[in-house]
Structure formats: C-alpha cells, structure tokens
C-alpha cells in the first residue's frame, strides 16, 4: 500500500515539477533557495493539475485503477515533452535586481541563532503535526463534512459519485480529487492520504515562503519569514485540521511570488512565468470558492496598477499570457459549478434580498467590528509585532519604483474588500459567520502578507553591512 501511495504522490509531483520548470527561467548561479522554490511549487501545481484531470477522467470514463495509472503516466510523459519543447523558447534568466546577493551578507551568529530556532521549530512542527494528525485522522469538522466526505463520495460512489452533490456544498474539488485519486491507486480509503495532502501543502507553503523571500531579499529575511509563519499557531492547526485554507493560501502565495519573480526575470522576451501564475490562480479557484474572488482581485489590481504603468499593449499581452494558464483550470471549475454542484447558498438568493442587505448599515457596522476584533487577536497579536518590527527596522534599503509590490498589496486589499461584501450579502447569522470564518479567511492571505512584509522591511544588517551598502548605492 505504501508503495502505491508513494507512487501516486510521486507521479503528481513529477508532473508538477516538469510543468513548473517548463515555465520558470534558469538562474545562472547555483541556488538552493531556487531549487527549493521549484520543488515547493511542484507539489502544489502537481497535486492541483492531477486533481483537475482526475475529475475530468471520472466524468468521462468509468472509474478503474489501471486506467487511472495509465492516464497519469501519459500525463507525466506529456509534461516531460512540454519541458523539452519549452527549453528552446524559455531563454529568460532570473536576475535579482532588488537585493544584494546572499554572499554579500556576512554570516553573523545572531542570524545563526534565528536560523537554528527556525530549524528547531520546523522539526517540532513536523512532529506535532504527525502526532496530532494520528490522534485526529479524519481532521476537524470542516474537513470531515467537506473535503473528506467529498473524497469518499468520489471514491466509494463509483459511477454514481455525482449524486453526492445534491447534499454537498458547491466547494470545488482540488482536495477531494487529490485524496480520491490516491485512494483509487491503493484501492482503500485510508486516512493517511488526507493527512499526507495536508502535510504536503502546509510545509510546501513554509518552503515556498522561505525560498521566495530568500531569493528576493536574502536568506536572513527568508528565515525570519519562515519563522513567523511557523510561529502562527492557527496556520499549523489548520494544517492539522486538514482545512483547505492552507492549500488555497499556498496558491495565493505562489501566484504573488510568480508575479514578483517575473518582475525579476530581466533577460529574454518570453514571460512564461505568467502562464504558471495563471495556473496557480486557477488552482486557487479549484481549491475553495474564495479562489474565484482571487481571480477577480488579480484582474482588477493588475488593471489598476499595470495598465497605467505599462501601457495597454503590454498590459493586454501579459493578461493574455496569464489567461493561457488560467483558462483551462477555470473551464473545469466552471463546468463543475454549472453542471455538477448544487447552487451556492449565497448567490442563490433573490436579488431583492441582496439589495436589502446591501442597504442595511448595521450589517456594515457589525462586520467591521468583528473583522477588526479578529485582526487584533489574530496570531496572538502578530500584526502588532509586524508593525513594531517595521518601525524598528524601517522600510527596505534600496528604494525603487516597485509596482509589483504595490500590485500585491492591492490584490490583498481587494480580497479583504471582497470578503467584507460577501459577509454583507451572506444569508447566515452575521455575527456567528464572521466570528467563525474571518480568522480562517485571513489565514488564507497570511503567507502572502508575510511575503510582502519581508519584501518591504529592511533585513537585519550589521552596522558594517549598512555602511558598505550605503557606499554601493
């Protein structure tokens, strides 16, 4: 059984790896951070793509394990062929413009202490994750009633799996599809699989955050970013609970990171990273309904920031390239929403109800109060820590017109505004729904917030480094 579990995950991740490196540029010098970034992206992209195609396979063919393995092998070969083909065209290279090279920062014992703490916390988190997951193998109620139940329907339902969606919510199927796909490989619905999926997404998010910040701002910032994410208990707890907030947060982060890497890819004419960003944006909407809001936020923020800065022609070209990655995944999401899932309980309401709720000022007040309260208490007051750190360290030391960071901030702001208005029109008891859900919605944005924060904040430089840096500028 273990062999088949490993085989199924390996097939997914290998497929994801070849897809990912097909669109990512080379970095001239050897960089462990860049290798880690590729691996972490491969996990999410691989599981996402195979989950998408698994559902299409279920819709098209009768469920059969051997046929699925052949289908996945074909997909893997396709990704290798794509990689070989893309090598000819992908002549970009990643040149980090915005930061000093890692080697410039002299190793200091203070950073070594933080690195040691990060590694201890990482090891401890892995152990705690496994112990708690063994204790609650089915996950928390959301996982049981949502993702794992859907996965069981996909696996146990055979040809009749679609009938399940008369009782289930309209949430998309990235997690259930991933879990059920592995169950088809092994022929049994063991709880090891959802635990493994939650584990992979949780620690890939940490890896992606660490590696991306390390590439763009140096290893010391990367370690601090990873340390902060691991210290946010709700993140780890949500992973243990097998909640889909962590995977969707992974795809938000991946998209934003890819936009930043694209900005640092300065050689060559092809922006293939935008295709990958389109795929990760689409996979966010394949993970949770909030992912659809993310697509809208990215489109709106890019129009607001990139259109005036780049001009219509360049903006439209970039949007089209991004769309090449997005549209295939989005097509699957739209098919699922229109043909299989039951109507959304929020958007299934009468339009007069929408208007009445939008006109009710007390709803705005309640939501604002509850959201502010949640933000203040989130992660034991971590937002105050960030504010204090920024005051102490100051903003980043190389000032330049960074429109991608502005774009990322605007995307996250649009997400928060979107959440707010979804609450306004929500049919469920308002105080209750904001209280139980907003901290989790904010958690989805949390890795991206940490990423942007460490791009903005100055790294912990020694006095000598600061002087040398001033001379360089």
């Amino acid at each position, binding site marked *: 059984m273990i062999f088949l579990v490993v085989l199924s995950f390996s097939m997914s991740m290998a497929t994801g790896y070849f897809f990912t490196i097909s669109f990512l540029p080379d970095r001239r010098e050897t960089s462990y951070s860049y290798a880690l970034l590729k691996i972490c992206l491969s996990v999410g992209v691989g599981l996402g793509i195979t989950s998408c195609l698994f559902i299409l396979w279920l819709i098209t063919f009768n469920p059969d394990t051997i046929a699925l393995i052949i289908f996945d092998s074909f997909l893997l070969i396709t990704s290798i062929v794509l990689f070989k083909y893309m090598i000819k065209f992908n002549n970009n290279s990643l040149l980090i413009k915005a930061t000093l090279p890692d080697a410039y920062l002299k190793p200091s014992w*203070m950073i070594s202490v*933080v690195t040691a703490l990060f590694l201890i916390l990482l090891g401890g988190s892995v152990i705690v994750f496994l112990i708690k997951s063994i204790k609650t193998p*089915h996950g928390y109620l959301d996982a049981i009633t949502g993702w794992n139940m859907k996965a069981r329907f996909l696996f*146990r339902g055979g040809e009749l799996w679609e009938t399940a969606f008369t009782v289930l919510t309209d949430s998309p199927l990235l997690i259930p599809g991933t879990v059920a796909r592995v169950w088809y490989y092994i022929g049994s619905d063991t709880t090891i699989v959802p635990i493994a999926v939650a584990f992979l997404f949780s620690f890939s998010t940490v890896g992606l955050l660490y590696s991306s910040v390390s590439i763009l701002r140096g290893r010391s910032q990367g370690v601090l970013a990873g340390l902060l994410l691991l210290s946010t208990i709700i993140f780890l707890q949500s992973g243990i609970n097998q909640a889909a907030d962590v995977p969707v947060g992974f795809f938000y982060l991946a998209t934003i990171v890819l936009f930043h890497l694209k900005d640092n890819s300065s050689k060559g004419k092809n922006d293939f990273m935008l295709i990958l960003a389109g795929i990760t944006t689409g996979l966010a909407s394949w993970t949770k309904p909030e992912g659809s809001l993310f697509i809208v936020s990215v489109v709106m923020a890019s129009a607001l920031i990139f259109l005036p800065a780049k001009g219509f022609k360049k903006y439209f070209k970039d949007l089209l390239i991004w769309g090449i990655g997005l549209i295939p995944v989005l097509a699957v999401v739209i098919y699922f929403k229109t043909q299989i899932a039951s109507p959304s309980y929020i958007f299934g309401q009468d339009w007069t109800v929408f208007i009445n709720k939008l006109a009710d000022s007390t709803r705005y007040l309640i939501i604002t109060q509850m959201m502010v309260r949640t933000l203040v208490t989130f992660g*034991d007051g971590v937002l105050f820590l960030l504010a204090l750190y920024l005051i102490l*360290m100051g903003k980043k030391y190389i000032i330049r017109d960074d429109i991608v960071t502005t774009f990322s901030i605007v995307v996250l702001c649009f997400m928060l505004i979107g959440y707010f208005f979804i609450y306004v029109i929500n049919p469920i008891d308002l105080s209750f729904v904001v209280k139980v859900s907003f901290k989790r919605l904010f958690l989805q944005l949390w890795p991206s917030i940490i990423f942007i924060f460490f791009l903005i904040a100055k790294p912990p430089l020694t006095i000598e480094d600061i002087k040398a840096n001033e001379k360089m500028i």
Partner: protein
Amino acid sequence: MIFPKYSTRTIIGIILFIIYPFITYCHWFTYSTVISSLVTKVKSLVTEQTSRPIENLKNYNTNSKKPTPKAGNFANPIYYEQRFKYLKSEVPKDMIVGYMTDRGGVYSTPIDWWLTQYVLTPLVIYRDIDRELIIGNFSNSGIISEITPDTIYCSNYYSSEKGHMYQLSNERGLILVGPKHGSTAHVTQGADGGIMKCSSVNNLILLKDFGDGVALFKRGKAK
C-alpha cells in the same frame, strides 16, 4: 556590549522575533488537547499509583475498557464508524434514505447528521422521513422501542429560534422530523411553534435495531 555588530533597533527587532514563537507555543499548549490529555494522563497515573494498591489497579484498568459513550464522542467520526458499521451493509449504496434523531431533530446543530452521512458515504442521507428507508440516530437504544406515532412530531418549517425549538423537543421527549429536503418554504407555523402531528410516521416499521441508538426503519403500508 553584547552585540557589537548590530544597532540597538536591529537587536530589539530580532529579539521580538525570537520571543514570539515562545509566546504563541506556550499559549497553544494551554488549550491543546494533546498536552492537556497528556497532563491528565500523567496526573491520573500518579494519583492511581499513590492511592491504590497494584492489584486494585489491575481491576480498575480492566473495568475502564468497557465502552461508555462520552459527550465528546458524539462529534467523533471514529465513534460513528463503530456505531454504523453493521447498518452499512444492510442498505443498498445507491439509495437516498431519510434520517431522524432525538437530539433536537432538525433544530439541532447538524453535526450528528453530517457524521452519519460521512461514515455511510456513498449513501445519500436527507434530513426528512419521506423515504423508503429511514436511518435513526438516537442518544440510546431505549428510545427506539418507545417510538410511536405519538412521540414523533413533524415540523413544517425551519424556525429561526433554534434554541427554543430544541428545548421544546427535549422537554416533551419528542422526535422532530423536518420538512422534505429542499422545501425550505415556510408552510404554517401553527399554534405550537410549528410542531404538529406527523401523519406520515403512522406507517413507520422498525426493520432492525443495531444497538447503541442506531436503527433502520422502513415505510410500510398506511394503516
């Protein structure tokens, strides 16, 4: 100076980041079930060892193996897997079945229904009794033998006052069953908060009592 290379601001900033995980993890340990259960286990072991002789301890451990459903078990999928193990094989997998419960019925939080649905997947369970087969999920098996048309009442609408309805159901020992799946339209509230005699249960036949509050009913011919 302890940190000659760094400015004071940088040192404070880094120290904040070093302290923060200690604060969050300590806070987590105060409410973590893993830690609290470990502490309770250790405490109980220490107490038992000091207050009981070894032979008594052996008896105590044997007795403690008896299955006694705890309040927390009602939200535990493992407990549900055990309870519904035998019912699973009795019902065809491609059916849509009804559902009833004594724990507030449609006015309870639907956790018990979700868990029943989870363990019996791919069976589709609707929270009504207008089906050929109906699954009963009760607090204990004693209730099953007491079910008569007089104890089952229907509620024609979903009240917004869930707490009140739940209390009403518990006070009277009534089993409330909800409106047909999908028909959330309010019919008549009625004088008694929407609870009314439910004619459709007159022909309810108990097919099998699986123990531990789990039962399977069938709709027979109307009397």
